[in-house]
């Protein structure tokens, strides 16, 4: 993996699996497991926004957290700038966290209500030993506030004094405090109103342009993901079923699940009537995923062999076009 730095790939995930054991019976023996993420591989290029979409319970948040080792992977490898981080010890891992940060969905739950903005933003600086003098530290915090569109007076305030959108700005400022290269954004705008969503999306795009950040953008809102992402991966029951450039995926979706997902987005245009693909049933339980292709019980195109063989994520053989990977027997 020495050539990774040259090829512009910042993060590589190889065969990542996260299983959660289920305990039951008298002695809490392991009676089964939930595969939240099963055998996922992909690369994220430096400076891009990699979108990850899927419905609730598909494993997208678990994947995001596992990449940062906030939850430990069960197997598989994660390479960050060419280094396998699955084997790092806690000390080295903490040093690495300077380069990779996360923004969570709920700006109400992810800020300590008893800390001022100054201590919230100062904490990562202290932990990583950045800005030793008090003056320097304050300067840095103020410039973070400027960058994220917050007033300088905010520095001595507490989280409850801010609206949802402003809190999310504080969360973004906290992630930026240590000058990371890579940020996992786990549903950063889902809890916000539409007019505020747009403000935060624009801010994130500005920061990316100015600071050369790379994002893994996790969301269930396909419109927002499409808007912000360079490439998009669609997850279903712990697996990636389709991965392509954002334009290609939205205009030319190949997997039947992606097609259904896109056709289900309500479009704010009453004159546009589209052919809707309405999927039957619900997402199956990850406790007992169906045999073969996980999507076959809901798939309008499913045939006999879909119930037996599980398809692999494969490159579509059209070299003239951009990379477009799909996991389906009938594409």
């Amino acid at each position, binding site marked *: 993996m020495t050539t990774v730095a040259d090829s512009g790939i910042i993060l590589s995930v190889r065969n990542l699996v996260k299983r959660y054991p289920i305990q039951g019976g008298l002695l809490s023996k392991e009676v089964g497991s939930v595969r939240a993420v099963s055998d996922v591989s992909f690369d994220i290029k430096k400076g891009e926004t990699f979108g990850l979409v899927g*419905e*609730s319970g598909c494993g997208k948040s678990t994947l995001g957290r596992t990449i940062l080792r906030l939850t430990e992977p069960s197997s598989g490898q994660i390479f960050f700038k060419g280094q396998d981080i699955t084997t790092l010890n806690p000390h080295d891992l903490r040093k690495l966290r300077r380069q990779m940060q996360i923004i969570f969905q709920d700006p109400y739950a992810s800020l300590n209500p008893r800390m001022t903005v100054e201590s919230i933003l100062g904490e990562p600086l202290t932990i990583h030993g950045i800005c030793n003098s008090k003056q320097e530290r304050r300067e840095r915090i103020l410039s973070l506030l400027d960058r994220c569109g917050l007033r300088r007076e905010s520095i001595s305030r507490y989280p409850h004094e801010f*609206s949802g*959108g*402003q809190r999310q700005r504080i969360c973004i400022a906290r992630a930026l405090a240590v000058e990371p290269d890579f940020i996992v954004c786990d549903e950063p705008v889902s809890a916000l*109103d*539409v*007019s*505020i*969503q*747009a*403000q935060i*999306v*624009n801010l994130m*795009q500005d920061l990316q342009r100015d600071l050369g950040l790379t994002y893994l953008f996790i969301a*269930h809102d*396909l*419109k*927002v993901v*499409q*808007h912000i992402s360079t490439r998009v991966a669609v997850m279903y029951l712990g697996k990636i079923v389709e991965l392509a450039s*954002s*334009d290609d995926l*939205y*205009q030319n979706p190949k997997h039947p699940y992606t097609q*259904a*997902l896109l*056709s*289900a*987005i*309500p*479009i*704010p*245009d*009453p*004159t546009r009537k589209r052919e*809707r693909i*309405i*999927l039957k049933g*619900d*997402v199956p339980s990850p406790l007992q995923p169906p045999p073969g292709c996980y999507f076959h019980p809901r798939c309008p195109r499913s045939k006999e062999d879909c119930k037996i063989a599980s398809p692999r994520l494969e490159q579509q053989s059209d070299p003239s076009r951009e990379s477009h990977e799909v996991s389906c027997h009938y594409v």
Partner: protein
Amino acid sequence: MDEKVLEVKNLCTSFFTEGGEVKAVDDVSFCAYAGKTLGIVGESGCGKSVTSLSIMRLIPEPPGRIRSGQVLYQGRDLLTLGTSEMRAIRGNEISMIFQEPMTSLNPVFTIGYQVSEAIRLHQGLSWKDAYSRSVEMFELVGIPSPSKRVHEYPHQLSGGMRQRVMIAMALSCDPKVLIADEPTTALDVTIQAQILDLLRDLQQKVGMALVLITHDLGVVAEVCDEVVVMYAGRVVEQGGVREIFKNPKMPYTRGLLRSTPTLATDSIGHIRRDRLETIPGIVPNLLSLPEGCRFQERCSHVLDVCKGVEPELREVGEEAPRAHLIRCARDI
């Protein structure tokens, strides 16, 4: 001409807090027609949910109080009814479904019991008849193997199925009006599509008026016939759905429409990825509203008159069958 089933006239609902009176709904009027869908849109805190709770007389008193206005249903003003008369209206005539189906269902009773209970109370059927009616209702809302499912508990169902149970319960007494408060917000897109489809189907079968409260303009465009846009307790724009989306006049409505990514494509087929337009600032605090127009601080077209008196809701154009109303001083 459509049949008018519910008319809300100059409704004002306030909450009395330590900080003073919060006018959550301030002079709101609209009508719901049989077989038609009215959408109420707005951001959190704009008063859309309080409006629906006021119609159902479910505002907790104190701290809340319906200060004035009328809610006319079949010639009667619901706001003047006594508790028991109102109870006869709720469920029977006007029904409601809520955003979070898990919290609206009782976890310790089977879903069949809960739906039957509603039917028994409102229609005086025996338990046996009520149960068979709930099986019918479950079938109507597309719950698979309904005669088995009636014996299940809410935790055994998925979010989409729970919402179907809520819809079955709400429609079990053939109401003339169904108020749906963010019915699909807690659901995934594919399930949302199923539920919206179901509501539309049922509306065609039953002919009820649907009042849909949502923050999602996409949902409005897909299912509504008429739209009411609310901001800070006020109706700021109202009209037929095509007119509002094609020709939004109030700067707030325009801002809302432009701040959502649209998946629209440009002339050469690439998806347009322009910078999103934003509405600067945040919703004003209802305790300290500005003089004049409530949107002035965030409006890019603000004039001097906006800062003086609050504009009245006025008609700007007529597109049959509904008038297009806006609350804006500018001539557009």
